[in-house]
């Protein structure tokens, strides 16, 4: 008997079913857009609307999917760090949105702008992270209405990797574009990516829709993402969750393409269990991971790039649970072929807190997965047939040039994980993982160097932010 343990057999008929049932919801239930600006767009294009609910016919969805590009490149301030999404590589960004920091003592405290800056320095010096988050943490020591300006300015000045634009409001999205314009001028080339989350079930919040509209009009890429808590904001079954969230995501994609056909989109869909003893949101579960695998197949079905959750955990410390859950989520994403993940470094319990030490640990996980998914080389040299025949049973491969040439590059080398023998491990000054991570963190921050920037541009960016903040 053939055993098939794939989470989803890539049976097109299942994907057809999810798609057709999503269309049924789009036609029969519609999606709520509580934004007059969005409703006006739909009405002007002849969509059926009832109050704030818009109904979608199959043709509108198929037309929209037809104009979404299969891949696109986001420019970085340092051109060498520009990233291609949909080209086969797995692009990673750190935590997104937590308002708290959890220290190694277990204490939880409000995140600050200084924490944002520290995380930016870690992103800049990270070997595995490809782009920045627009809210790596939500700083509590600056006014909420202008926090996006402080975060964006810090990110632009402290890193030269690609940016995420803010979606906290329409104004914040416009501010993000204005700051980008100062760097790249008035351009339609993608220079940032943004995350637009729906509000389950079957609706969007006004600030999300209006941010989506700002970015779509400017031709800037958007991750359109829907997710429900299974059994709370959506059906308890994965099949039902897929249909309800797919319908919502497709409606958002449709709006983006109505405004500007060809707007780069990353397809996003997730689903997390409800903790049935409290009603709380739980992530980092086998059910989350199943969504990741199936959603990747759906994105391939639609021919557009795909986003998944990252190194999530419900744990609050650097323990077995944190590592196990993060690894399950990330490994599933990596092996399923996800293009983009947010939350890949630093996230603790239900995405509500960040940890600097977990960030360092997750980098080892992300780095090892990037190595895992790298295709194995099957060249003549890699098979090493001549060498195998020459050495036979007596060979010491350590003494060969074939080994020498590759000994520094052949294997993934963890920064944090230990590979010491037991006696050395016992003798280590910092044996606990969080303490070793703390040492690496301190070294990283002390050796950080700010990337070059034209002083005129820096002044211009600072001036814009100060003016907007009324300083």
């Amino acid at each position, binding site marked *: 008997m053939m055993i098939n343990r794939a989470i989803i057999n890539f049976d097109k008929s299942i994907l057809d079913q999810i798609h057709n049932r999503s269309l049924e919801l789009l036609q029969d239930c519609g999606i709520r857009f509580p934004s007059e600006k969005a409703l006006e767009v739909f009405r002007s294009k002849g969509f059926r609307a009832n109050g704030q609910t818009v109904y979608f016919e199959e043709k509108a969805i198929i037309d929209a999917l037809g104009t979404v590009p299969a891949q696109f490149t986001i420019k970085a301030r340092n051109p060498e760090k520009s990233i291609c999404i949909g080209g086969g590589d797995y692009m990673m960004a750190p935590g997104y949105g937590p308002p708290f920091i959890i220290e190694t003592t277990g204490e939880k405290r409000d995140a600050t702008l200084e924490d944002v800056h520290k995380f930016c320095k870690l992103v800049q010096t990270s070997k595995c992270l490809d782009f920045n988050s627009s809210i790596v943490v939500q700083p509590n020591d600056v006014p*909420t209405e202008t926090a996006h300006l402080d975060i964006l300015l810090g990110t632009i000045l402290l890193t030269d990797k690609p940016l995420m634009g803010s979606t906290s409001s329409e104004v914040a999205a416009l501010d993000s574009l204005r700051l980008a314009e100062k760097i790249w001028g008035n351009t339609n080339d993608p220079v940032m990516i943004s995350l637009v989350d729906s509000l389950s079930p079957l609706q969007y919040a006004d600030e999300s829709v209006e941010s989506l509209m700002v970015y779509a009009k400017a031709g800037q890429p958007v991750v359109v993402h829907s997710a429900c808590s299974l059994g709370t904001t959506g059906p308890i079954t994965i099949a039902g969750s897929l249909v309800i969230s797919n319908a919502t995501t497709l409606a958002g994609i449709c709006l983006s393409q109505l405004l500007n056909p060809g707007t780069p989109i990353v397809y996003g869909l997730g689903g997390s269990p409800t903790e049935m*003893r409290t009603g709380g949101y739980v992530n980092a579960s086998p059910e989350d991971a199943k969504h990741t695998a199936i959603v990747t197949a759906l994105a391939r079905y639609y021919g557009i790039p795909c986003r998944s959750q990252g190194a999530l955990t419900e744990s609050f410390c650097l323990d077995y649970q944190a590592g196990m859950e993060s690894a399950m989520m990330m490994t599933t994403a990596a092996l399923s072929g996800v293009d983009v993940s947010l939350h890949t470094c630093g996230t603790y319990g239900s995405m509500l807190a960040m940890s600097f030490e977990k960030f360092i640990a997750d980098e080892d996980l992300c780095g090892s997965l990037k190595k895992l998914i790298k295709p194995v080389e099957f060249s003549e040299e890699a098979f090493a047939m001549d060498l195998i025949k020459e050495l036979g049973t007596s060979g010491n491969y350590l003494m060969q040039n074939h080994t020498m040439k590759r000994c520094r590059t052949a294997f993934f080398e963890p920064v944090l994980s230990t590979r010491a023998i037991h006696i050395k491990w016992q003798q280590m000054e910092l044996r606990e993982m969080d303490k070793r991570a703390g040492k690496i963190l301190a070294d990283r921050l002390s050796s950080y160097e700010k990337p070059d920037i034209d002083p005129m541009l820096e002044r211009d960016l600072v001036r814009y932010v100060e003016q907007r903040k009324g300083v």
Partner: protein
Amino acid sequence: MTVKEIFDAVLAFDEATVTGKTQAELDGGTDIDAILNDGLISAMDEVGERFSSGELFVPEMLMAAQAMKAGLAILKPHLSAGQSQSKGVVVIGTVKGDLHDIGKNLVSMMMEGAGFEVVDLGVDVESEAFVKTAAEKNAQVIALSALLTTTMPSMESTVKAVKEAGMATRTIIGGAPVTQAFADQIGADGYSADAPGAVKLVKELVA
């Protein structure tokens, strides 16, 4: 001993039996206070305890609350003004700018189940609406919910508005990013990390 059967039916989430037995007891002339307190409300106290200990799951607790409310609806027309229809009035809502309502709904259902009259103002609620409704309903407690860090300032402005209106109504807050420290900072009268805790808090505040 069918009042006990009403109690048992609430714990079995069996709405049809709760309404059937409640009606039968009422028709049979059983003391209404006994049906209300020994049947319905004490059953919900037991549900609350089983939920807090992790024995009951949320959907089960909600179904029990729904069964209890169905029984209560039968009794309501027969309750005199002096008979305690509720333990107090709570005005609840998700604050201005925030559309998340799962936690708020859970707290609302649990409070109703515990015997409070709950006025749910929904989501994206202005400070003035909380103040106005609390005054109209003579509410003892205003319960504020927020999921977004960006809408937490709306909690502060609502608490301030309640104080400025010179009302005796107490304010409590909850939601994933909210903490006791934040409650203290904005001068709210209480904070709870979860729904059962919110019910306990309200019971203490109205005691």
